[in-house]
C-alpha cells in the first residue's frame, strides 16, 4: 500500500500550470493528511528517476515458426528476388531525393533476368530517354544492378537488344557471369482469375527489391502506357505499384511470372491501389522476337491496300482493296491480283479481301490486326472478291510491309 502511495505522489507534475486551483488544494490537503511531501517530477525530458534500466527493459518474447502461408510468401520472395534487377537509364541525370541527409537515388525502374545469356526485360518507357536519343543497338543505354549472394549489388553496362513501343517492352543485354544470372520462371496469363494472390517485386522510389502483395483485381484492361499506346489485355492488381516498379515482375503464388508491371492509375503520382501489368503471354511472344530480330515483326502480307477514301472513290464499300502486290512476295505467288490500268486507261480493280480465316474484314485496319494476330509463316485463307466472283486464296504470311 505504501509503495502505491509513494509512486502515485511522484506522478503529480508540477509543471502542469493549467491545473485548477481546487486540485492544488486537494493535493495540499492530501499531503497534510498523509504527511508525505510531494516530490516534483523533473522538468521536461530529463528522465524518470524512479526506475532503473533493468526495470524498463522488457524481455524479448520468442516466436515460433511462421505460419505456413507467411512462410510460403517469404520463401517466394527469397527465391525470386535474385531475378529482379535495378535499371538506371544512363542518359538521365540521377535524381536524388534529398530529405535531410538521406539520399535515395531514384532508379528509373526494374527489370527481369530472362535467360542465362544476360538478357534483361523491362519496359520501353523505363529507358525511353535513351531510346528517344536514338542510341543504336549495341550501344550502352542503361546500367543494370544485379543482386549478388553476399548482399552487394553488382552493376553492369547494358546494351540495347531490341524494343517495341506498341507493347512497351524492351530487351537489354548485360555481360554477366552465368552464376550471377537467375532467370525468372515464366507462367501463363491465359488462365488467371480475379482474386488470386499476386506479388510484385520492384524498386519504388529507389527502395530496391521491395515486395508488395495484393490480388488480381481485374483482367483484360486497356493500359494507357507511358509510350502513348494502348496495350490491351492488361492485368489489374491492388499490390502497391509505384514509380520505380515499372518493368518489374508480377508473380503468382507459385512464383511464376504472370505479368510485367507497367502503369498505375493515380491522381497523386503514387499508388492508389490500381496498378497494371502487361500479361506474360504477350511478353512471351514479343521477347524472343526482340532478342532474335531486334524488333517485332508484324505478320502480314507484302501488299498495299487502299485507304478508305480511295476505296470509296473506287466504289469498294466492304473489305480491303488490294492496290499493289510486291512481285516476289507470297501474296504474288498465291495469285493475289493488284489494281491496274487497262488498255483504254481505265482502272481495273484488284482483289478485294473480304475475310481472313472466316473473320470478316470491313476495312484496312481490321485486316492488319487480323493478320498481326498470326505468326509469320502461318497459312491463312483469304476470302477474295474478283469482279463478281468470290473465292478462297490460301497464302503464307510473312513480314508486313510497314
Amino acid at each position, binding site marked *: 500500500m505504501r509503495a*502505491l502511495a509513494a509512486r502515485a505522489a511522484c506522478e503529480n507534475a508540477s509543471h502542469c500550470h493549467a491545473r485548477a486551483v481546487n486540485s492544488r488544494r486537494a493535493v495540499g490537503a492530501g499531503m497534510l493528511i498523509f504527511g508525505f511531501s510531494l516530490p516534483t517530477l523533473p522538468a521536461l525530458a530529463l528522465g524518470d528517476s524512479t526506475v532503473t534500466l533493468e526495470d524498463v527493459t522488457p524481455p524479448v*518474447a520468442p516466436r515460433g515458426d511462421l505460419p505456413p502461408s507467411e512462410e510460403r510468401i517469404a520463401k517466394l520472395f527469397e527465391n525470386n528476388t535474385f531475378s529482379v534487377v535495378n535499371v538506371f537509364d544512363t542518359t538521365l541525370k540521377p535524381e536524388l531525393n534529398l530529405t*535531410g541527409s*538521406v539520399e535515395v537515388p531514384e532508379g528509373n525502374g526494374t527489370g527481369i533476368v530472362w535467360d542465362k545469356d544476360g538478357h534483361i526485360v523491362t519496359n520501353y518507357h523505363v529507358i525511353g530517354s535513351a531510346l528517344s536519343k536514338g542510341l543504336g543497338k549495341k550501344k550502352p543505354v542503361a546500367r543494370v544492378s544485379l543482386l549478388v549472394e553476399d548482399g552487394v549489388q553488382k552493376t553492369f553496362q547494358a546494351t540495347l537488344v531490341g524494343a517495341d513501343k506498341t507493347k512497351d517492352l524492351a530487351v537489354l543485354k548485360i555481360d554477366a557471369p552465368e552464376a550471377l544470372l537467375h532467370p525468372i520462371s515464366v507462367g501463363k496469363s491465359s488462365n488467371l482469375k480475379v482474386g488470386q494472390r499476386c506479388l510484385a517485386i520492384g524498386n519504388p522510389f529507389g527502395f530496391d527489391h521491395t515486395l508488395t502483395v495484393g490480388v488480381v483485381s481485374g483482367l483484360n484492361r486497356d493500359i494507357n502506357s507511358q509510350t502513348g499506346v494502348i496495350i490491351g489485355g492488361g492485368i489489374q492488381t491492388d499490390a502497391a505499384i509505384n514509380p520505380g516498379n515499372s518493368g518489374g515482375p508480377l508473380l503468382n503464388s507459385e512464383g511464376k511470372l504472370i505479368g510485367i508491371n507497367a502503369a498505375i492509375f493515380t491522381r497523386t503520382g503514387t499508388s492508389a491501389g490500381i496498378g497494371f501489368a502487361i500479361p506474360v503471354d504477350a511478353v512471351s511472344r514479343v521477347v524472343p522476337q526482340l532478342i532474335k530480330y531486334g524488333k517485332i515483326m508484324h505478320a502480314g502480307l507484302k501488299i498495299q491496300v487502299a485507304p478508305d477514301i480511295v476505296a470509296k472513290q473506287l466504289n469498294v464499300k466492304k473489305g480491303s482493296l488490294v492496290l499493289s502486290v510486291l512481285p516476289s512476295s507470297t501474296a504474288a505467288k498465291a495469285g493475289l491480283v493488284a489494281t491496274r490500268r487497262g488498255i483504254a486507261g481505265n482502272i481495273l480493280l484488284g482483289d478485294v479481301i473480304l475475310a481472313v480465316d472466316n473473320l470478316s474484314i470491313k476495312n484496312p485496319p481490321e485486316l492488319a490486326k487480323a493478320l498481326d494476330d498470326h505468326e509469320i509463316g502461318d497459312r491463312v485463307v483469304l476470302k477474295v472478291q474478283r469482279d463478281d466472283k468470290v473465292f478462297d486464296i490460301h497464302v503464307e504470311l510473312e513480314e508486313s510491309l510497314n
Partner: protein
Amino acid sequence: MGHLSVTVLAQQPSKVAMLPTKSGFVARRSLLMGSLAMLQVANPRRALGRNARDNHDEDLEFEMRTMQLFESTTRSVVAIQDLDLSSNVAAVDMDDGEIQGIGSGFVWDRFGHIVTNYHVISKIAKDTSGKKQIKVVLLGLNGDVDSYNAAIIGLDASRDLAVLKVQENLFRWLFTFFFSLVFKIEVPESSVLRPAVIGSSKDLRVGQNCYAIGNPYGYEHILTTGVVSGLCRQIPSPSGKPIFGAIQTDASINAGNSGGPLLDSFGRVIGINTATFTRRGSGTSSGVNFAVAIDLVRQVVPHLIVEGAVSSSRSVERGVLGPPRYLSLP
C-alpha cells in the same frame, strides 16, 4: 479540480472497431488527420496439391489468429491527444480545452511509460506557453475508456522516438487508495496498464504478415495489414539525421496510427509505425511505409526513460542492428 473522465461507450470497445465511428455523446472536436480504416485480410491462394479442406481450415485459422491478435493487443495501444487550453479562456476544468487526436502510442511497461514517435508530440514539446497538455487515452478493464495526463520523459529526435509517462490523476488515485484501504484489497498496479509484448526485428523476413495498429481517438482502432516489404531501410528523422534499419511495409501508415506498434502474427511489437513515402506532400499513403525497428527502440527507450535523452552516437545502432542481413541464394 481534475475529474475522472471515464466515458463508457454504447458499443463494446473491447471488440475491435474496424471503421471509425463517432459516438454521439462524446462531444470532442478532433481534427481528423486522414485516418484510414482499412482491413485487408489476406486470403492465401490455394497452392497446388493441397486439398480444399486444408485450405479452408488454414483460411479460418488465419482469420481467427488475426482477430485474437487484436483482442489481446487492443489494450496496449493508446491514443495520444493534445489538449489545448488556450482556446478557452474561462477554462477551469482540465477537459474544457480543445482536444486533438495527434497519434498513437503503446504501453511499454507497468510503470506507465508510453512509447511513441517524436514527431507526434514535437509541437507540444516545443510549446512554452504551458497551455498544452498531453493526454493519453487507453482502454481499461471492462471496456472503459480512460484519459490520463501524460508528461514527457524522454525525447530522441534523431530516431523519432519519445517516451511519455502516464500520470494517474489525483482523484482517481485517492479513490483507489481509500477503496483499497477500506476494503483491504490490494489494487494491482497493472490492472489498467497492459504492456505490449515486445518482439525482435532481427529475424524478420520479407513477405511475412504485419499489422499496424493505431488508436487515435482512444475508443476505436485503425488496423491496416500488409507484408514486410523490405528491411534495413534508411529513413529521415525529424532531426535530419537518417534512421537506420527501418522496416518497410505495404500496410498503410498514416497520421492516425503513427507512433503505434507494428506487430507480427504472434502479436509481438516489431516496430513503431513512423512514416509513409509520399510525393509532393500529398499526405496519402503510397504503399511504401516505414516503421522504426524494435531492436533499436529496445536499446534506446530504457535510456530515454532513465536519462531523458540518449547520445546520438552511432554505436547504439552498430551494436544492435548489426550489418544488413543478406539472403543466401536458393
